[in-house]
């Protein structure tokens, strides 16, 4: 039982980070039909922005702020203006391929201009363990979970509780009707790109202390976010939350389950893909997603 709790909390902490990335992923899809295959690299990059700022002498809080603002400019504004806007008119496929290119560019750019080595990242929250009911947790796990959930709650409040947020929801649900009511749909789409950049930056800053910052990190993070979005339901923010937590928890339970089944722990990496296949076969709309009807 103690083991179970321990794995569960560790899984939720990782999963909450995946959820941040997955939420951004679904927001971009909902508002602009952008399937961002660079999402993993979006989560990789901000930690390096923070490292650069710290190398230049900035204290961590300032570096974190610079990472978030830098992400908004590079991954929000520039991505939208330079890649999405010119390509979206040609349909989703050219854009999807371009996002793959953006991912490669970010990955190799960091490798080339910063380092190919994994970079240690300041441990903002203490890794000191504490024991509760026989299970061992670290303060860092709890703090990561807390920060991620707080950001998700703040986002939910913004989307549901503010008029701008509701205009964004309206633009995502039915852009034509939104335009008919006078909503500036393009501006609302731009806001979702900014939000995605912020979420990616927060995820980046939360995951870097435990996993280090590495140029190739995006591969695994992007896959996790993608699977989380599909597992939860591509068209729902709460789907991405559920999906992120499920993927994170499954990932943490995998070694135990695999050894119990007498399988090599090398299969752990295949687990998200296994989940993906299961969901697509048996519940294609995702765990909490809506079925979508396509008008022809």
């Amino acid at each position, binding site marked *: 039982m103690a083991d179970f709790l321990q794995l569960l909390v560790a899984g939720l902490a990782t999963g909450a980070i995946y959820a941040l990335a997955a939420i951004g992923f679904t927001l971009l899809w909902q508002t602009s039909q952008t399937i961002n295959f660079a999402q993993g690299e979006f989560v990789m990059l901000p930690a390096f922005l923070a490292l650069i700022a710290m190398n230049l002498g900035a204290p961590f809080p300032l570096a974190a702020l610079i990472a978030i603002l830098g992400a908004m400019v590079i991954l929000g504004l520039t991505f939208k203006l330079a890649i999405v806007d010119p390509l979206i008119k040609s349909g989703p496929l050219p854009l999807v391929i371009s996002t793959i290119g953006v991912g490669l560019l970010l990955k190799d750019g960091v490798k080339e201009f910063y380092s190919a080595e994994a970079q240690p990242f300041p441990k903002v929250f203490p890794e000191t363990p504490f024991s509760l009911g026989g299970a061992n947790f670290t303060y860092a796990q709890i703090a990561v979970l807390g920060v991620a959930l707080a950001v998700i709650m703040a986002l939910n409040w913004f989307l549901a509780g503010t*008029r701008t947020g*509701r*205009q964004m*929801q*309206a633009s995502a*649900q*039915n852009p*034509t*009707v*939104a*335009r*008919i*009511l*006078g*909503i*500036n749909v393009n501006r609302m789409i731009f806001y979702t790109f900014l939000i995605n950049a912020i979420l990616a930056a927060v995820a980046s800053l939360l995951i870097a202390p435990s996993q280090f910052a590495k140029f190739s990190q995006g591969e695994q993070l992007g896959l996790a976010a993608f699977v989380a979005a599909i597992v939860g339901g591509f068209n729902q923010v709460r789907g991405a939350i559920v999906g992120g937590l499920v993927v994170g928890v499954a990932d943490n339970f995998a070694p135990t389950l695999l050894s119990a089944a007498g399988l090599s722990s090398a299969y752990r990496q295949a687990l998200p893909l296994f989940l993906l296949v299961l969901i697509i076969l048996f519940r294609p709309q995702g765990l909490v997603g809506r079925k979508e009807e396509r008008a022809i």
Partner: protein
Amino acid sequence: MADDFILTLQDVVGGYGRMTILNGTTARIRRAAITTVIGPNGAGKSTMFKAIFGLLPVRSGRMTLEGRDTTNFTPRQMLDAGVSFVPQGRNIFAELTVRHNMELGGVALADQSGLPRRIDAMMQRFPILAEKAGAQAGTLSGGQQKLLEVARGLLLEPKLMLIDEPSIGLSPLMVQEVFGILKALRDSGVTILLIEQNAKQALQLSDYGLVLEQGQTRIEDKASTILADPRIAQLFLGGGLAPAAQ
């Protein structure tokens, strides 16, 4: 008064991509009256509304609202000019509450401080919406949703309202209610431009009628005259019409 036109279309040409639907549409819509646009499927009725409201580019021709050129205005400019549009089908945001749906109708309002008061007034006018104010709009019946759309469209107190097929999918009782609302609006000075599948019923309620066929206006007359015109029956039975004599 007879020549008081709020909206005019002059040889409007437009469509989707390269496809031309409006083929030189000309119309003059009278102020503070209900005008129903009828015509067979594919005649360009909905396309005409979209072109008027700026949802579709007009390739040539000219449109005026109260004498001012509004050709290729954006929807936002049309709203600011006093026109609102209730399109065909379901146009509510199902996951938002009734009140929040209504509130989105006020996005274009210049003075946002007056919005809550306007919403409350609209809720009073449609008590069923007040009753369901906190419910998700998707839980409303089809008729209530249409009511919500109309109420939302009225929030800006438009001079002209374009309504495309409001009765589709509604019970006969609800259709009567919606038509009753349109009449009351007309009586309060709002101009209504309506598309209705149920042409006969709509013309009975209307002051004027406009028969559209193949993107061109065939007849523009008093509703009662159109109702009595034997050619209308012929049109809806599939026969063509010669262009109306100018």
